[in-house]
């Protein structure tokens, strides 16, 4: 793996546990899909994005209200703030790249207190599209080489999008059984918790630096 310079963060499943219901409601109400009894907010989200992609049209204000509801109900993972703070201190650019609306993302960033940590925020509105579009905008906007960028995701769809953009796909192994299935998609890497990401990036840096000195993985804490 190349030296990592930036991490693309999709809030759903990467930074917070989102409820599935609001996304299922959008799929049902705006795309005529039956509600599925999925407990995974991430899967429901990416399913909704696929429907939006197929329909080829933006969703309206009523759907955006449901996304806001999802953000309201989302609970950020405990390790988000310490991990992102450490990454920023390491000089890693943190780019939020999401297919949610700008309104929903602004609410999420405020709610979780992330504004100071992020180098840029890309949504489906300012990126002009969903799925790969926010990722491409984030990479282009920061003039990054995709090989030096990680994208964190906990779904098969997210892994596919990362591969299509050429960034390193990092599996968030939130659920061990689901992660085992997703490991068959050959992600570039995987972490159990966001607090492992700084060490991951340090290890890659050490591999890239020949003859790196002894370094305690726990030292910075």
């Amino acid at each position: 793996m190349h030296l990592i310079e930036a991490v693309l963060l999709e809030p759903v499943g990467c930074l917070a546990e989102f409820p599935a219901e609001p996304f299922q409601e959008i799929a049902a109400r705006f795309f005529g899909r039956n509600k599925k009894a999925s407990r995974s907010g991430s899967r429901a989200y990416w399913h909704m994005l696929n429907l939006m992609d197929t329909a080829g049209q933006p969703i309206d204000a009523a759907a955006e209200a449901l996304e806001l509801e999802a953000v309201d109900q989302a609970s950020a993972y405990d390790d988000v703030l310490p991990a992102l703070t450490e990454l920023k201190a390491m000089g890693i650019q943190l780019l939020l790249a999401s297919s949610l609306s700008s309104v929903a993302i602004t609410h999420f960033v405020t709610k979780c207190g992330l504004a100071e940590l992020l180098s840029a925020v890309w949504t489906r509105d300012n990126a002009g599209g969903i799925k790969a579009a926010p990722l491409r905008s984030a990479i282009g906007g920061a003039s990054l080489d995709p090989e030096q960028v990680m994208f964190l995701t906990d779904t098969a769809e997210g892994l596919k999008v990362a591969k299509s953009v050429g960034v390193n796909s990092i599996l968030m192994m939130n659920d061990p059984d689901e992660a085992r299935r997703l490991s068959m998609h050959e992600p570039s890497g995987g972490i159990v918790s966001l607090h492992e990401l700084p060490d991951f990036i340090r290890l890659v840096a050490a591999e890239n630096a020949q003859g790196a000195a002894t370094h305690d993985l726990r030292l910075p804490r």
Partner: protein
Amino acid sequence: MKNISIYRPTTVDEAIQILSRHGTDAGVYAGGTDLLVRLKNRLKQAPTYLVDIKKIDNLRYIKEDAQGGVQIGTATKLSELAESDLLQKKYPMLIEAINLISSPELRNVSTLGGDLLQEVWCQYLRGGYSCWRNGGYLCYGAIGDNSYYHSAMGGRLCYAVYPGDAATALIPFDARVKLATPSGVKELSVEQLVPGDMMVDGRIQSHVVRFNEILTEVVIPPPQPGLRASFEKLRPRGVWDFAMASMAMSLQLRGKTIDDARVVFGGISGKPLRETAVENFLKGKTLSADLGDQAVSVALANAAPLKYNSTKIDMAKGLLASGLAKMNATA
């Protein structure tokens, strides 16, 4: 298996020169019960150049030092430790622990240094999965079958447990080690030698020994009068296996009063886990029938089991209780 070259240096200095020349492509070869298996398993991290240290005379000994402690050369075989009258006399718990390491056949080949520095025995690593220790970036143990050889105390990228028993048994005696390095001899405690998942020379390993350093000696301080120790181990297979959980404990006793304590758990974490909460709890207490239950209540508060291995924590706590019961019965 890939082609390998073997060097047979006759001095530690010569061995260090060879190791320095080849960098992380070289590895120290003593008993081979870990190293040769890694080669056979075709692991990416297995070395191409083996530096056989068996021809170095002054690495294989067990002797008493001037203070009444014991010095052990790291190329000493485990079976030689198990048969040592000196160790039996001074540290019988260590003999107990050594006899619970693998099988008699393997103990006849394995060395003390090899046991201390062995690679983890995660079935995914040994099965050639592209994990953190094998050129990849994912821990399959964290998401797969982690019943036996994975940490129940959290992890950092790699979730495999540190597999050695010798370190777990040596820490309660405050044992120290010597490392020969290009810039001279370095001394560490055994606890400092194996602090768990470390990034050393760009790779993850359980110990801090760099590619051009050789573990040469273990030094155990003299036992003080009143020192009692016990070692307990539970294995998936009773005949021979790595620990599901193990516990080594030493108590400095005055009558039945505990003046000082060391409690170390093996098989449940990425390192021999010194449980200072229990040690502090035990200090000043009197050995009694119910002390075990009380100690268990403060043990392993930071447990973070994976999906299939919470039973390791119960086992470790059970070993603590039985160790204290044994001490009480014989004090």
